[in-house]
């Protein structure tokens, strides 16, 4: 185990100053998620334009550095993607967090991949995987217009 791998500079920075920590004005999709074990919660807002492309993404909530950084990076890189692309990225990210050594999606550029790989350190901390994935599951729920809260059990 390596704490330095988990708490990389970029995670600490995003955790401290999360991007898009607000509520998108005129959002048209949203969903809530919570982590009953930790008491962490997140509310994801998406604004899709006429072409179904994410024009803006934001979130509100509180949580640990990992969950805040994850939501921050996610909302940043999802902008400009359509639903299909976004969901493929989510799949890719969840696969990487759980087992895959790298990200494969063609919808991610190198810079985005590098940022997301900073979260790969949680792999070694099974109890913390859900911190990294909560906002991602919640975003999928927003796309799917699910009304019940997302609860990550892992």
């Amino acid at each position, binding site marked *: *185990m390596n*704490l330095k791998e*988990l*708490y990389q500079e970029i995670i*600490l920075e995003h955790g*401290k100053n999360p991007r898009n920590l607000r509520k998108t004005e005129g959002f048209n999709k949203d969903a809530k998620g919570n982590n009953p*074990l*930790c*008491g*962490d*919660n997140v509310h994801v807002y998406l604004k899709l334009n006429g072409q179904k492309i994410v024009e803006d993404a934001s979130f509100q909530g*509180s*949580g*640990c*550095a*990992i969950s*805040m950084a994850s939501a921050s990076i996610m909302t940043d890189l999802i902008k400009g993607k359509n639903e299909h692309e976004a969901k493929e990225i989510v799949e890719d990210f969840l696969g990487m967090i759980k087992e895959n050594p790298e990200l494969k999606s063609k919808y991610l550029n190198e810079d985005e991949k590098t940022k997301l790989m900073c979260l790969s350190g949680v792999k070694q*901390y099974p109890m*913390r995987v859900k*911190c990294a994935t909560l906002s991602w599951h919640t975003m999928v729920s927003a796309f799917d217009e699910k009304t019940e809260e997302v609860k990550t059990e892992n």
Partner: protein
Amino acid sequence: MNIDQIKKEFPIFDEKIQNNDLVYLDSANSSQKPKIVVDRINEFYTKQFSNVGRSVHYLAVAATNLYENTRSSVQKYINAKDKNEIVFTKGATEALNLVANTLGQSYLQEGDEVLITELEHHSNYVPWHFLRKSKNIKINFAEINEEGEITLEEIEKKITPKTKLISITHLSNVTGAILPVKEITQLAHSKGIIVVVDGCQGAPHLKLDMQELDCDFYAISCHKMYGPTGLGVLYGKKKWLEELPPYQGGGGMINEVKKDRISYGELPNKYEAGTMATAQVIAFDQSIKFLESIGIENVMKHEADLVEYGQELLQKNNSVKLIGNPKNKGGVLSFTIEGVHPHDIATILDEDGVAIRAGHHCCQILHDKLNIPASARASVGIYNTKEDLDQLNESINNCKKIFNL
């Protein structure tokens, strides 16, 4: 009292936890187990096993005697008047559910009020909530003061003519506040109100005397008391346990079963339906022997010293904020660090072998009141030393460094 010697009785401290010596500061969650308890479980299963109270063969009779021995030991340890006032359950949670359920069946009426406190663990709130749903009883909350305490005055203020029952923790698993249970009970009884005590955190750390406390029910969690998991104790005054209906139905709790009628067994069998946690009950006798061998006064003295030391240490550590500052405080140090989420604290401390808990510790009402989503909690047991708390403080400093505080 030699703590190093006591620590040696716990095999877990011989283990390296991820290459570190274990600094176990999570005893409020569950305590570690002395070797005599672990060995007793093994011995029972390898040499003496049989189900209890069913068959007449040699092993069954011997096991039944061992099982009943523990009941007597518990009775003596908590100074209950009668052996039949001791009921084994699967945990304190089940003990509290048993009380709420049976009082709900036959005593509490629609519109009655139950008074609990903002300090309560979910297991001393949710069972009453069930009655709020099913019987329309009302739940009132006594509020904490600035120090994270519940005072007798606050309880008195929240009692109304409709209050039928007060259910309170003996010792808060978050602020560490020790409640004036004896005084609250006196007050309650003078008004005909029943008192239930969640003794999970009290039982392992305080002197227990049921006849002196005089509460009507007291719930104990054995796994926090240097005993096995899957076991709890409900103390209940005999008149209540005799009067109340059974909780679960099945084998062992009956007297006579016919197609058209059933009569129930006597205490304590009435509340022990089905095959019980036999090995755990038998091993729990060793937990009590362990505590008796040290002496509860010594336990209390040692843990009070530790809390005082830890409190001073953390108070001096800037950016650490302790939760609650009760005058009468048990071995719990809950805290937050401005700018670091409790889960990050716990993960970073874990790297040094320091085991604490992060979250709401099953006390969401309290955390809402304090306006924090979670907290970090270090809690002590008989095996902890001042060095453990020094290590806690050092690891907290490391955590601050990682977060550039």
